[in-house]
């Protein structure tokens, strides 16, 4: 309708005009919960409906990367370079670095599927095998497996649904190279490699474990900070560890479903270097909804999504050890700004996933429950203002 078009036009001017260096908006046929880099220019996305789903490898538009000659490049579309079918939901997808392999989990069991993403001669993503998880208790769904991978030869993946079943599996043989020694049934929210051998396991109850695949020693456990006095509900936690050449310099951020964020040093996970109360809507969210991530190429920046239809960027360098309210450095609200968003019983659009580009400092991709996928390069207004 004419009114809607006018409203849309205002959006362009108000929100999107000044604040982005680049902005691309796409609509997938089906929403995705995963965005995983498979190269500097390609990502994988996949559906999560209960039955048949597609896994797609998309090549980002040339225009995004044509830095000097951007003006001469008209091409702004995604290209579907590879695709495959699966008859399960894809809740988790991990690319194995240095290979054309990906591993997926369906969130229902701890078994994983292994895929060949395809080469130049074919556009098919083919299932090549599966990996059995350790957990024998099927049907008890606390969310499915978490998966982590780092470059190794031969390729290996770290996976598990709860602490007691975390293992390192060699992809080609299926051989278990390492098992985490713990009886804890803490459900995992994420796994992160800090180096070739050291890894961090974040649990949804806030516990963090750090272990070394070279030893069979019990992992180091760090519990979360005590919950706020007022909350009666159980609090969920999500974790990210910053990458770096030296694992001891690594920092860990923990985010709770009540919006509390804590930054700790790896050497002292029990203490918090800084903390903040983030500006998020703390409506009930599931263990799978929220993503928190350190920017790989931008100091101290953290991206947060899943609480609403927005992706927020925070500058953690201004946080202190006192719990104070923090305002985001930038907020990408594009997913929630849609004509369909009204209060007529339609469920609100939520961001399902986001990722940072591994090298370009301010480039992110985000996906939402309505099937939209955005690629954006935001302008740091505060830096611009300081000039």
């Amino acid at each position, binding site marked *: 309708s004419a009114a809607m078009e006018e409203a849309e036009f205002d959006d362009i001017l108000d929100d999107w005009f000044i604040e982005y260096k680049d902005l*691309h908006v796409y609509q997938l046929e089906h929403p995705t919960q995963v965005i995983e880099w498979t190269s500097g220019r390609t990502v994988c996305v996949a559906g999560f409906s209960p039955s048949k789903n597609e896994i797609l490898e998309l090549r980002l*538009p040339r225009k995004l990367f044509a830095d000097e000659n951007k*003006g*001469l490049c008209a091409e702004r*579309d995604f*290209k579907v370079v590879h695709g495959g079918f699966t008859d399960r939901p894809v809740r988790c997808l991990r690319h194995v670095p240095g290979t054309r392999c990906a591993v997926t989990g369906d969130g229902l069991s701890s078994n994983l599927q292994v895929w060949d993403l395809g080469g130049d001669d*074919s*556009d*098919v993503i083919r299932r090549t095998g599966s990996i059995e998880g350790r957990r024998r208790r099927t049907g008890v769904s606390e969310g499915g497996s978490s998966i982590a991978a780092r470059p190794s030869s031969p390729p290996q993946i770290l996976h598990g649904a709860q602490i007691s079943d975390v293992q390192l599996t060699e992809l080609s043989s299926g051989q278990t190279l390492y098992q985490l020694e713990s009886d804890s049934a803490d459900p995992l929210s994420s796994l992160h490699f800090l180096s070739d051998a050291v890894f961090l396991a974040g649990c949804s109850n806030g516990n963090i474990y750090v272990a070394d695949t070279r030893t069979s020693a019990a992992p180091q456990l760090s519990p979360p900070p005590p919950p706020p006095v007022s909350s009666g509900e159980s609090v969920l936690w999500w974790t990210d560890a910053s990458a770096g050449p030296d694992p001891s310099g690594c920092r860990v951020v923990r985010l709770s479903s009540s919006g509390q964020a804590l930054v700790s040093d790896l050497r002292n996970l029990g203490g918090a270097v800084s903390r903040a109360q983030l500006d998020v809507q703390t409506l009930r969210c599931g263990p799978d909804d929220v993503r928190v991530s350190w920017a790989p190429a931008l100091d101290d920046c953290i991206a947060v999504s899943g609480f609403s239809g927005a992706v927020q960027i925070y500058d953690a360098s201004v946080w202190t050890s006192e719990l104070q309210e923090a305002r985001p450095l930038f907020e990408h609200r594009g997913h929630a700004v849609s004509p369909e968003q009204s209060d007529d019983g339609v469920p609100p659009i939520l961001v399902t996933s986001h990722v940072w580009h591994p090298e370009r400092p301010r480039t992110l991709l985000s996906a939402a429950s309505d099937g939209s996928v955005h690629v954006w390069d935001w302008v740091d207004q505060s830096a611009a203002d300081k000039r």
Partner: protein
Amino acid sequence: MPEIKVTPLGAGQDVGRSCILVSIGGKNIMLDCGMHMGYNDDRRFPDFSYITQNGRLTDFLDCVIISHFHLDHCGALPYMSEMVGYDGPIYMTHPTKAICPILLEDFRKITVDKKGETNFFTSQMIKDCMKKVIPLNLHQTVQVDDELEIKAYYAGHVLGAAMVHIKVGSESVVYTGDYNMTPDRHLGAAWIDKCRPDILISESTYATTIRDSKRCRERDFLKKVHETIERGGKVLIPVFALGRAQELCILLETFWERMNLKAPIYFSTGLTEKANHYYKLFITWTNQKIRKTFVQRNMFEFKHIKAFDRSYADNPGPMVVFATPGMLHAGQSLQIFKKWAGNEKNMVIMPGYCVQGTIGHKILNGQRKLEMEGRATSVTLCCPLAPIKLQIVLDVKLQVEYMSFSAHADAKGIMQLIRMAEPRNMVLVHGEAVKMEFLKGKIEQEFNCYMPANGETITVTTNPSVPVDISLNLLKREMALGGPLPDPKKPRTMHGTLIMKENSLKLVSSEQALKELGLNEHQLRFTCRVQLQDPHSDPDTLHRIYTHLKSVLKGYTIQHLPDGTVMVESIVIKVSSSAEDTNTKVLLLSWSYQVKYFQCSYLTDGLYRD
């Protein structure tokens, strides 16, 4: 088996030369006749040798249909019709007919005059070609001949673009050409009814694309214009007379209003006149919004957009100018470009593809120094009569932006269209089948999918249904036989005569057929001889046979008739002795054509058992 054949013509797999041959119901149709813009030699034309090795195509084609005016769909048309030779009908929509010759002439001028090519069609050839064109209206069925009919559907994409439905008898094909499923600011979205064609033909290239939103493209455009204006620069937008220009004007006008901008926006007058002229002619082809605007006021009565005068190009300060032609190859846009190119504050925004040989093409390829022709302002003494051409080198310092606004369907759009039309089979052309297994698999979840390579023919068997009327008497008779009602999943045999009268078929009883045709019924009777050894007399043998049959063939009517025959149902048995030996009996069994086989063999088996 009835079948439809589809062959995409031409070498190379890339998009850039649409030309598809379809054979349906004995008719041969050429869909589009495009030029490949990337080649400078004969490879830019489709390979017509597939149709015939020698000579004219008139005898081999029933018609040619052009989907829209883009050169990669109509660029080779004059070459095909005038240089290879075709005198049959060429169908296209009214806007396409009006705009095609302009683009073809422009293209010809650039290729021949600027690039000096020789094996190319002439202006006269373009005119002669267009004389063969029969224009189409939307949703109007056109009889090409007694059997072949075609109908055009709205495709969006550009003014006059159509999808075409081709029908021969009960077989049909839909060709999409280029189309768009999301409405533009000035064009609607493609639409087709649930026509369920045997084949839907579409381009494969777009099927693997997921398009960036229109809002983002517009945002980019506005941002670039705004940045240039803010720094005091001038923006040149070379456009063809129609389509995109209107879209961008509407966008800028709204933006200027919203941002309260003061810099002037100009539209060259030639453009205005042409655009108005075309829109008046083809108002039904634009979307509702434009139609309303046009009806209420002149298309170009914008508050912020004024008519351009040549002298304005020298005015200081920021401005935006829309000027023709679109590829900067001549005329006003080139004049303005030459004046503004040297200032890095300025910008040129190219809104579409530029043909090789044009300035537009060169600057889009990053060329920053252009050799241009200038005219001498004074005459030298050594050669006073010959015009002196100077080569000027133009330094391109202004910002060059390439923005693609052309509206194509993408992966999602294609599935939307397929589900609208519900074809029995899908054919995707101009793709590499080997590399498109996933796409094929995806479509094949719902429809059969073929991906022929260029020059490769795919054959699709069709299952045309032939409607037949059945006489009421026959129907009643069949119903009276009892048993279950006829069911498509459980066919049952019935007996009747099929009469073809004029163009209709009907099924009647044999008696009625004979009556209608004024024929007498002939009865066929078959006779077979069976030899038996039996010492009895002829009548006794006959009686024995009678008794025997009565005992073994229970449930059948067996009669011993006074005329010396035995009848089993309608089978007649006579006995006679052989002339040579009275112990050798010859049984004559005769039956009419209707009698079922098994009854006869049972009968003879029964006799032999004794």
